């Protein structure tokens, strides 16, 4: 997977120089297959093998690994949600999982007052650095969160879900696809090539 050096640095302020970092990771964790300058940033191509895909195929995950092998402090951002406590999600949305074996857990949330448009420049740049194409702020944020946390997610247009019984159906994760990424890979542990 491709990682943005600047992005990693946000989580590990003491991160070593790109070349040193590549050497540190190669000797202590993963083979670094590429380290290229791209504008103000460096793109590291890090080969994460299947045993560590679950926790290291994301920037926070990789930052955690770097902090661990290098003895640096990890600094992740806190966030808070603005929720309207008087509204009940059950009135808006239900989720039906037809095969619990293939999808043990699926969570959804309704976000309101969204204006579709372009993502901020810095976010677009990060997506491009990691090999993704910016589409719009909705699609981009799902991809951004995936690259950040390793959790794949998908945005549905609430207005276009069936109105009478608003329901996001998951029959078999293999069947659900979106224009952004394939859902099945989420649950099986995504091989890195799918993210490139």
């Amino acid at each position, binding site marked *: 997977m491709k990682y943005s050096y600047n992005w990693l640095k946000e989580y590990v302020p003491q991160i070593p120089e790109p070349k040193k970092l590549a050497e540190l990771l190669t*000797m202590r964790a993963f*083979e670094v297959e590429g380290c290229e300058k791209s504008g103000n940033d460096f793109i590291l191509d890090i080969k994460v*093998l*299947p*045993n*560590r895909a679950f926790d290291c195929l994301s920037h926070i995950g990789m930052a955690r690994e770097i902090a661990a092998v290098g003895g640096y402090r990890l600094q992740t951002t806190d966030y808070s949600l603005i929720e309207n406590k008087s509204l009940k999600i059950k009135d808006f949305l239900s989720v039906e999982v037809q095969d619990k074996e293939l999808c043990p857990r699926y969570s959804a949330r309704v976000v309101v007052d969204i204006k579709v448009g372009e993502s901020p420049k810095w976010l677009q740049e990060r997506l491009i650095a990691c090999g993704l194409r910016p589409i719009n702020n909705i699609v981009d944020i799902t991809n951004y969160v995936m690259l950040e946390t390793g959790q794949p997610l998908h945005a549905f247009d609430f207005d276009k879900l069936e109105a009478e019984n608003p329901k996001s159906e998951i029959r078999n994760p293999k069947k659900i696809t979106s224009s952004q990424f394939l859902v099945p890979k989420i649950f099986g542990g995504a091989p890195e090539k799918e993210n490139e």
Partner: protein
Amino acid sequence: MNMNIQDITNNFQKEIENAQDNNALESLRVKYLGRKGIVADLLNSLKNLPVEKKKQQGKEVNDLKKEIEEAIKEKTQFLVADSQSLEKEWFDISIPGFKHPRGHFHPRTIIMRQVETIFQSMGFSVVGGPELETDWYNFEALNIPKDHPARDMQDTFYVPPISEYSDSEDLVMRTHTSPMQVRYMEKNNPPLRIIVPGRVFRRESTDASHDYQFYQIEGLMVDKHISVANFRAVITEFFSRFFGQKVAVRLRPSYFPFTEPSFEIDISCVFCSQKGCRICAQGGWLEIAGAGMVNQKVFESSGYARNEWQGFAFGFGLDRLAMMKYKIDDIRLLNSGDLRFLRQF
């Protein structure tokens, strides 16, 4: 006169029979057909004869002349043909005999024998196994279940089940020589030391450093107390002896489902003594093998009790070693069967 011609004919027959070369023939021709030859004499003597006799005798002399000409011509041709065939069949018994060309070993065979010799001297036995393998030995027994992402690490030739030979078990062309770890441990008890050289198959497109079939050497050492330190010692000794120089070994973390922990093995560049060259991409290290401590699950697959034994396993590409030793720049040459290539070894 009549008698005379008959005598002449008889004499000529005898003489031509005895003529063995062109010179003899030529003098024979002069003697009979020359300007002062016997035939000319006969013709001369005709002058004095009456017309009737002249006609009759003249015919006889002419027949004789033709006969002699024919005979000489025939004999000349015979002599020429004879001399040619002699030339052709000329046999010089003094020429020394030539050597029958003898076969020689394929570069991979040479390397394989060197590798085997070194390991045998360290107490390893050489064992072999099937190239067509069951899914169980190639994957499942080595801790690679069907839905495991590690299966994507190797592209596999899956083979349709052959009902005659197996109870419709899933078959694959072995992707590594590791299935022999389990096959061997099923039948043998530790302590054990083996190497398994053999051909393996990968479903991938070929280039200068990849082929869809190549050779691997698998190694396995199991006992109560085997550690990474033992592995380091064995592998360092092997590569030092193989390359005929002191070689440093470094281990990097890696992952194989059948070992835990797993590592990649780099050796110090044997071409530039770590000064940095084209072959080691200026890094001073050559990535050469994969290894690790045998995963307890593999011992379980082999029928050993969990946590009873410890061991290391390793594998490396034989073709890669041959390429390094002989400076071959394209792996595909090894399977090409190209005599221009093979005759160099």
